C-alpha cells in the first residue's frame, strides 16, 4: 500500500481549487466596483419556496425576445453581427458567439419599448413592475469598449452574453437578425441575512396578496461577477 505522504496530494488539490476560487472572488471584489446598480423584484425575481433547496437566488429577468417574443433587438442587425463575429453564413442552428453586452436599467430603450407597446396595465400609473426595465442595448467584443460608450455605472451593467443569429421571413425577403440568448451569470446567489429577510417577507405575506416588493443593490466586480450588497423592502404603491 502506498504511503500517506503521496495521499496528501488529494487534499492539496481540494484546497488549491478552493483557494483559486477565493482568490478570484477577492480580485473581483477588490477596489472600486465596476458598477453599482439598484434593481427591483421585476429584474431580480427571487426563488424562495423550494422544499429540497434552502438556498435563495435571484433570476435575472431582462426585456428580450427570449421572454417577450414580440421584442426585437433592432440594433443587432447584419452589420452588428458581422462586427461581433457571429456566424451567419449558414443555417439556423449555428452556435452563438460569446460577447460582452451592456444592460440599461430604466432608460430610454425601455421607455421607447413601452411607448410603442403600451400594455393595458400602463393606464394605471405607475408603470407596472411585472416587466423588467433591464434592456440589452449594445454588445461588443470587449468590456472596456462598452464601458467607454456607457460610462454611467449606476444605470449600465456590463456583463457576458451569448448572441445568436437567425433568419426571419419578411414579406419576400429573408432577413438576418441577432438576439441575446443568454446572459452569464443569469442566477445571482443571495447570502444571509438577505435570504432570511426575503423568506420572512414571504412568510408574513397575507395569503392571496401579491408577492413582496424589494429593491436590490447589486455590485459588479472587475471580472464582471455580481454580488448582492443590500436588499430592502419596498412598499407596494
Amino acid at each position, binding site marked *: 500500500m502506498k504511503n500517506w505522504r503521496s495521499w496528501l496530494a488529494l487534499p492539496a488539490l481540494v*484546497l488549491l*481549487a478552493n483557494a483559486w*476560487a477565493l482568490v478570484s472572488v477577492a480580485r473581483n471584489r477588490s477596489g472600486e466596483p465596476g458598477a453599482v446598480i439598484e434593481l427591483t423584484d421585476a429584474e431580480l425575481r427571487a426563488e424562495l419556496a423550494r422544499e429540497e433547496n434552502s438556498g435563495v437566488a435571484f433570476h435575472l429577468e431582462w426585456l428580450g425576445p427570449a421572454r417577450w417574443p414580440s421584442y426585437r433587438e433592432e440594433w443587432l442587425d447584419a452589420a452588428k453581427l458581422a462586427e461581433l463575429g457571429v456566424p451567419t453564413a449558414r443555417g439556423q442552428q449555428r452556435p452563438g458567439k*460569446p460577447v460582452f453586452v451592456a444592460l440599461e436599467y430604466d432608460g430610454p430603450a425601455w421607455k421607447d419599448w413601452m411607448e410603442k407597446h403600451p400594455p393595458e396595465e400602463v393606464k394605471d400609473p405607475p408603470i407596472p413592475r411585472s416587466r423588467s426595465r433591464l434592456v440589452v442595448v449594445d454588445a461588443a467584443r470587449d468590456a472596456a469598449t462598452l464601458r467607454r460608450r456607457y460610462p454611467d455605472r449606476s444605470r449600465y451593467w456590463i456583463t457576458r452574453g451569448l448572441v445568436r443569429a437567425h433568419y426571419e421571413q419578411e414579406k419576400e425577403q429573408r432577413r438576418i437578425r441577432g438576439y441575446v440568448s443568454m446572459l452569464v451569470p443569469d442566477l445571482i446567489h443571495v*447570502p444571509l441575512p438577505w435570504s432570511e429577510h426575503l423568506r420572512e417577507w414571504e412568510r408574513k405575506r397575507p395569503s392571496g396578496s401579491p408577492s413582496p416588493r424589494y429593491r436590490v443593490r447589486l455590485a459588479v466586480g472587475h471580472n464582471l*461577477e455580481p454580488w448582492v450588497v443590500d436588499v430592502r423592502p419596498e412598499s407596494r404603491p
Partner: protein
Amino acid sequence: MAEPRTRAQAQQRADRLRVFQEELARLEAEDALHLTSQQRERLNSHVDTTMRGLARDFDIDTTESQRQVSWGMRIAATAGALALCAAVVSFFYRYWGLLATEVQVGLLAVTPIACAAGAEFAARRERTLYFTGLISVVALGAFVLNVSVMGLIFNLVPTPGAPLAWGAFAMFLAYRYGLRLLLLAGIGFGMAFVGAMLTLAAGYFWPQMIELPETLLIAGLLSMGLPWVVPHRKRADFPFVYLMAGLLVAFLAVLVLSTVGENSLLPFGDKTTEPIYQVLGQAGTALAVWLGVRKGLPGVVNMGALFFILFLYARFVDWWWDWMPKYLFFLIIAGVSIGLLLVFRALRGRMTGAT
C-alpha cells in the same frame, strides 16, 4: 510466466486454473488422458497452493459461486455509491441556505477531504476494495459539489478549470486504488476539459463544446491514443477503458456531425460537411471492426459494429423516411440487417478457418 501483480491478473490466473481442472477431469472421463496417482497428487497440490496464495494475497474468487456473489457485490457497491452521492448532495442543498457563507465554504472543502481520508482508511483494511470504491465515488461527488457550489455562492463565471480539477481528483483515486469507475469519470472530465479548451480556442464560450462536436471528437481521439503514449504496466486493465471511452465519444461526435453539419468548425457549408463525416463515420466504424478483430479486442469490434449500423440507419432515415411508405422502409432495414448478418457470419467463418 510473470507472477500476477494486480487483483485482475490474479483473478485471470485463478480462472485459467479452474477451467484447466474442469477440462482435465473431462479428458480423463473421456479416456483421452491418464495421469498417474503421483502426477495427480503433485498437480492437485500445486493448484491448491497457487489458489490459496492468490486468494490470500488478492482476495480473488476461487469458485463460480464466489464469482457470482462478487458481481452482486460490485453492483451493490456502485448503486450504493451513487445513492450516497445523491444523499450528500440533497442533504447539502436542503440546509445550505441556513448557513453563513464561511460555514458553507468550510463544509464544502472539508467533505471531499474527509471522504478521501475514509477511502484511504478503507483501502488499508480491505483487499477487495469494494468500500474503498464506494467511498471514493462519494469523495468525487463531494468535490464536484464543492467546486460547483463555490461557483454558485460567488456568482463566478464558469471556467474549464472545474472539469480539469474534477478529472485530476478522479484520476488520482483511480490510479491509487485501481478503480475503473473512477478512471471512467476521470477520462470523462479530461475529455470535457480538452473539449472546453478547444472550444475557447475557436472563440466560443466553453460550455458550447456540446454544440461543437469536433472539439469532443479530438478529445475522444486523444483518449484513445493516450495508453500508447503512457504505458500502463501496473494497471494493465486501464488502457481498455481509455480506448472504449474515447471510441464512444469520437463515434458519437462524428454521428452528430454527419447529421447536423451546421455545427462543424470546418470552413465548408453543411452540404459538404455532412457527407465528409458520413463517409468518415462509415469508414471509421468498419476500420474499428477490422482492427478489433485483428488485435483480439471484442469490445472494439462490438462498438464498431453498433456504430456501423447506426451510421447506416441514420442515412436511411435521411434518404427515405419522409417519402417512402413505412412498411417498405422497415422492409429495407430488415433486408440490410440480414445482409449484415451474412457478412458477419462469413467474417466469423473466415476467422475460424484462420484459427
